[in-house]
């Protein structure tokens, strides 16, 4: 319970900090608009040649794009800035200051940084999902929406765990700034349902960089394609990544000898 309170306070301070820089909001707005326009144009281009892409219709792909944008926003707002700071502090040995605090260190390192204005992407993502929903052939039931929200939550946990895993490797390997580049290019693959990729790539996108589970599965839930097997796979992969990241984090901490090493 105490952890939740700490988390809430950190978030509030983060938002207040960022709210000082209003120009950043407009820059973000412009960047999100450019990204949105590009995405829609590409989608229109693809569907000017075909009626469906691997059995996904245009409105359904809008939903995939919406989820992708939303997740990208969440990663930018809270996951990536915190994990980058964590990696930097492990390298420089300044993580010590965090470890002396009485609260669980994993909670603390996960909420210290907030790039609040990227929340624009979350809003844009939700808007695209809503727009796609309106254009769907069959109406969406309440059960589908609930399942969708649940899967979004799992997706967020997966990305968080994935990033924590990657950041924790900084305890052993030092130069890993390229991870961000790799993640960003792989993340682009999530703009399309992973079912269209060849098996080898689909496997990577499910078990190595679990974009398929974190982005495609929520969209599947929304468009009524999620099978029970798919649901269990999603829960399983989430549990696996979450558990593994916690384990590696604790292991890394034992390994960490601080600035004086």
């Amino acid at each position, binding site marked *: 319970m105490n952890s939740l309170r700490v988390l809430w306070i950190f978030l509030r301070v983060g938002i207040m900090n960022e709210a000082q820089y209003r120009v950043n909001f407009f820059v973000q707005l412009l960047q999100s608009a450019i990204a949105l326009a590009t995405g829609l144009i590409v989608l229109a281009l693809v569907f000017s040649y*075909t009626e469906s892409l691997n059995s996904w219709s245009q409105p359904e792909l809008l939903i995939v794009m919406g989820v992708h944008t939303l997740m990208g926003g969440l990663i930018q707002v809270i996951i990536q800035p915190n994990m980058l700071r964590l990696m930097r502090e492990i390298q420089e040995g300044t993580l010590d200051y965090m470890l002396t605090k009485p609260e669980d260190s994993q909670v603390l390192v996960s909420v210290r940084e907030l790039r609040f204005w990227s929340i624009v992407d979350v809003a844009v993502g939700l808007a695209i999902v809503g727009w796609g929903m309106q254009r769907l052939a069959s109406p969406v039931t309440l059960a589908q929406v609930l399942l969708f929200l649940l899967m979004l939550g799992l997706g967020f946990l997966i990305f968080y765990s994935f990033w924590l895993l990657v950041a924790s490797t900084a305890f052993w390997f030092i130069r890993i700034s390229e*991870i961000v580049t790799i993640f960003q290019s792989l993340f682009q693959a999530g703009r399309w349902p992973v079912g269209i990729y060849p098996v080898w790539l689909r496997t990577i996108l499910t078990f190595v960089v679990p974009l398929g589970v974190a982005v495609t599965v929520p969209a599947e839930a929304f468009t009524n394609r999620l099978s029970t097997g798919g649901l269990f796979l999603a829960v399983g992969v989430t549990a696996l990544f979450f558990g593994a990241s916690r384990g590696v984090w604790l292991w890394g901490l034992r390994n960490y000898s601080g600035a004086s090493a």
Partner: protein
Amino acid sequence: MTGKRMRSRFNEIKFLTAFYSLRVKYAALLVFQYRLATFLWVVGLIVEPVIYLVIWSTVAREQGGIIGGYTLADFTAYYLVWMILRVVNIGLHPGAFEWRVRNGRWSHLLLRPLHPIHDDIAFLIGNKALDFVILIPILILLGLFFRPDLNPTGWQILLFIIACLLGFLVRTVWQWALGLTTFWVVRVQAIFDLYFAIELLLSGRIVPLDLLPDWAQRLANFLPYQWSFGFPIEVAIGRQTWSQAVTGIGIQLCWIVGGWILVMFLWRRGVKRYSAVGA
């Protein structure tokens, strides 16, 4: 008088040649220290064309195997060559310009007798040495696996290499011109985003130009982008006749000269402004 001038011009070229060869070698040596990092970086670059390739082959398959004159094997060839161009075309990151202005790095670069664009170009060329060492085996593997329709003749290979180099210069020079806007506006990220979004759509990067609607193709003809991506690729996969390819190289040269003039113009203005701030 003219003799003297010619001699000084000659010395300048001799100096530039020596500078470029040293700087390229130095950058290449530097990058060979970061083998793992570079490997990861090249792998990251390859993801992008794989996505496009998968999408367009899926569309083509659903439309009976061919769209816009491109078969599955044509698309494969297109995006394999694309990977070469992506590495060739790597320019200066827009953030680098912001960084130079914010941290006052231009002051240091301004002290040098040589225009800093030469340093950037030479560094970028040398920097790619390791990229190619890594990319070539990957391309060969992908080629064996995906079976592209790719049989370039001798002249096509030759013109492709020239077109690659010129395409790189087109992109670098225009990006440099855009980067110079940091002298006036410090936050250029959004401007660069727009620039790259247009590049994505109108350069042949996300889709071969022949698949764009007519009006978009016409629009692309007024922009420099296709000369860095679409044109060199089309030379390699045999979609340009000899005369088209030679004309294209001429147009590339025009874009380089145009961009160069723009860079020099903005540079002179920007430097004045920069020193006026007192940084």
